[in-house]
Each structure stands twice: as C-alpha cells, then as structure tokens.
C-alpha cells in the first residue's frame, strides 16, 4: 500500500492550494464590510444598513422594493424575465416619482418582516395585509387595496361556510393572513401549510386538500381561470387592507408614500393599474371598487 514515490496528486494539490489561497485573500477583501461599498452582485444591498429617508434614497439613486416574484397577477416574473403585476405597477411609479432606479428583491411570505427589519429592502410591496401583529414590527403606509379571506374548493364538493371547514383538510400558504387567521381563530382546524403559492395551488389541484383559504382576490383570480374549482366563500374573516410597509420608525419614507398616494388618487392611478393587471384575470365579475383603494383612504 505504501508508495514511496511522491505521487503526482501531491504536487498538483499543493499548486491548487496556493491558487485557492490567493483567491480567498482576494475575495476576503470584497466580503468584508469595509468603508468601500463595492457591490458584488446585481442585487447587493451592501451600502447602508437600516432605514433610508427619501432624500437618502434619491442620493443613492436606487430604491429597493421587496416584492413577490411568484404571485400572479400581483407580483410575478413574466416570460421575458421582467417583474410585472399590480404591486409592480405601484413600485415602478414610486421609482419614477422619486427619480430613482427600482431594484426588486424577491421575498417569501414568511420572511417579509425580516427583510424590512434588517434593512435589506426600503419598502415591502408584497401584497402585505395590515394586521395589528405586523404593525408592531413595521410601519404601514396608507392602503392601496382592500382584501378579506376567500375559500376555494372543488366545484363538486364546495365548502360554503367557515363552520363547514371543521374536519376538512384546509390548505394555506405559510405566513399569510389566512394562516394567521385560522391559527388564532380555529386552532382545532386541520391545516396543511405550504411555503409557496405554486405549491399550495398544485396541492389543491392534486386533491391533497378539500379547501384552500387565501386572500379573496387570489381566490377569485384562481377560480376564474380554473373550471374545476369555485370560490365557495367569497369573503369572510375581517375586512383588511393591503399597504406598503417601511422599517419601524422610518417616518420620512412613510410620509412620502402617503403623500404619493394622494397624488396618485387624483389621477385614479390604481384603477388604471387594475385595468392593466387584474381585469384580464377577474373579467367583469368583480367591480374594481371592491378591491381598489385610491388616495390611501379605505
């Protein structure tokens, strides 16, 4: 077994080691949080930690918005790789009126608060429903949409009331309003939780649950396109609003967003955004005024 000759891999390995070592030193320079804000990746928020005021954002020339990248028609990525949807219309307009470039950061439902708290994004625009628990952790601007819960179930076995859900297999997406509502109001319900919208809808289609509880907008959008399922409860739970959120205490940015909403209200901006992104999905069955909030006044 023992070979006394210095085998080839020995020398090769040392050469590789030397090469790698120099590489480590080179990269250590980039990774260390020195004063030089060298961005290493396209979505690299390496410059400032924490909240930024509108003036600081303007100075930096870029605003970072946390959005969904897999929740059509609110925030998704189209086939050309561009962000699109109702939330994105709003986001683009924010960037335009601030005069800065928009950098979209895809977030998961359950980590939206984290992204704000750690200053990874300036604003969360990810279909974020206003709740008292969330308001303790972040500051909400005024709303731009109304929402309540809805339930989707198979056409041939519809679940038509909240009480009828007892004993049924309920599907929700983790960290959404539906999840919080069912967990606090009905801890005895049998709830299966998924991480992504894609997973929840696929599970529903594969018969892994009897009913899917989600925002009623989402429920309507889904059943509109899917003949096998109906929105068997179109509105329950508390009537909530959806708003942009900023880091706790970032009053300047929140105030700016609220003023912006007033300006946008005058030109009926969100009705236009509705027509562009949501109407193709909802069709004429839903009146835009049931969902859209103009000027920040629900």
């Amino acid at each position, binding site marked *: 077994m023992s070979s006394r000759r210095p085998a080839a891999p020995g020398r090769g390995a040392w050469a590789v080691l030397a090469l790698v070592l120099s590489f480590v030193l080179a990269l250590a320079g980039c990774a260390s949080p020195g004063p030089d804000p060298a961005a290493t*990746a396209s*979505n*690299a928020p390496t410059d400032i930690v924490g909240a930024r005021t509108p003036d600081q954002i303007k100075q930096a020339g870029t605003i970072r918005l946390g959005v969904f990248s*897999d929740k059509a028609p609110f925030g998704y990525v189209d086939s050309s790789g561009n962000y699109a949807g109702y939330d994105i219309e709003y986001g683009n307009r924010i960037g335009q009126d601030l005069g800065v470039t928009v950098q979209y950061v895809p977030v998961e439902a359950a980590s939206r608060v984290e*992204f704000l708290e750690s200053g990874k994004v300036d604003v969360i625009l990810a279909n974020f429903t206003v709740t008292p628990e969330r308001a303790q952790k972040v500051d909400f601007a005024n709303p731009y949409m109304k929402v309540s819960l809805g339930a989707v179930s198979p056409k041939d076995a519809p679940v038509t009331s909240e009480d009828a859900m007892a004993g049924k297999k309920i599907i929700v997406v983790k960290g959404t309003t539906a999840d919080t509502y069912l967990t606090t109001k009905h801890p005895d319900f049998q709830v299966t939780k998924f991480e992504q919208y894609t997973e929840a809808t696929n599970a529903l289609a594969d018969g892994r649950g009897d009913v899917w509880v989600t925002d009623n907008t989402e429920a309507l959008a889904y059943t509109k396109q899917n003949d096998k399922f109906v929105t068997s409860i179109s509105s329950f739970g508390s009537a909530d609003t959806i708003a942009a959120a900023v880091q706790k205490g970032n009053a300047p940015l929140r105030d700016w967003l609220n003023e912006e909403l007033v300006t946008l209200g005058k030109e009926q901006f969100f009705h236009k955004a509705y027509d562009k992104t949501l109407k193709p999905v909802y069709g004429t069955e839903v009146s835009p005024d049931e969902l859209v909030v103009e000027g920040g006044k629900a």
Partner: protein
Amino acid sequence: MPTSGIELLFEGRNFSRLMLGLWVSVRIALLSMLFSIVLGTGLGLVMNGRSRVGRALSRVYLEFIRIMPPLVLLFLVYFDLTKVAGINLSGEVAAVVVFTLWGTAEMGDLVRGSISSIPAHQYDSARALGMTELELQRHVVLPQAVRRLVPLTVNLTTRMIKTTSLVALIGVVEILKVAQQIIDANRFEYPGAALWIYGAVFFIYFIVCFVISAFSRRLERKWALS
C-alpha cells in the same frame, strides 16, 4: 388549449433564465468549495495535530456547524448579522459565507478521516527507514490521503450545488426559484407545467453534477495508476 407545458420551457426567455439561475447556483457552490478546500485542509491538519486546545476547538466547531441546518445559518448570516452587528451582506455573499462555514467543517472532517485511515504501521515503517517527519508527511501520508480525499471532495461539491436551492429563501434567484416563477406566472394557461418544469430542473441538476462526478472518476483512475 395546450395542457402539457413542455413548450413553456422555450417560451420567451424562460430557458435562458433557467440557465442564468443555474449559473447562480453553481457560482455560489464553486466559490464556497474553493474556500472550503483551503480552510478545511487547515482544519483537518489541526484536528489531527498535537495541540489539545486546537483539537478541542476544531471539534466544537465541527459539531456546531454539522448540527446547524444550513437554512438556520443562512437566516443568521443574512438577517441577524445585519440587525446585531450592522454587517449588511448581499444574499449571494451571505450564501458563500454560510456554505464556506459548512464546507470547511465537512472538508476538515474528511481530511482528518483520510489521514487517520492510514494505518499506524506505515508511520513506524517510514520512521524506521529514517524519514524525517516532513518526508513522512510528503511521501507517505499526503499521496495516500489525497487519493482517498478526491472522491469524497467531489461528493461534497455536488452536495453543495444541490444545497444551494435553499438560498431562494434569502432572496437569491437561483434555478429552482426561476422554475417556481415560471410555473406560477403560467399557472392559468398551463396548469400541468409543474411536471415539465420540475422535470427539466431535475435533469439540469443531473447533467451538471454528473459531469463533475465523471470528471472525478477519471481523475481517480488516472491517479490510481501512477
């Protein structure tokens, strides 16, 4: 209307987006692996070294990292490092840091294992032949240890590529996230897309990791002859 969804792969920029996502995964894995090999070799030597303190410390490090699911480390480095220490890393840098921490521990253990698997009598024989410690390391231990190490290292590399799918949770768009975006954006037109898109991702991962494994096998064979 079409229900299969295979054509979705080639619609718009979907395919090139998947490839870009793949490049993100592979880039993170390879960078982390490079660092891990260097740091892990050092760690492995310390683990087999004479210093008791060094051995104890490296053990604690290994056990700690091994036990932490990478997901937890990702959250700690990406979110909590910012909140606690004010160090704001981008998702990708955070991922490289985490995978390097993890890879170093695993590499260290592999290096330790392959060195200590060399039977004690070889050391004795080498010393009896009058070799110095350095000669012993260079001519007896290293050649055998490296040979044992190569397949294990490649094993770790493919594992690392595969684990990168977790970085989607800290906002890095890699191949699996792109897949989910495609499935979701088209869920109305192509409800069956999950099968094809996930199938494609499965296949792409397979090709990449297979090529790497095949390369290592060639290396192994070549070295085995010398």
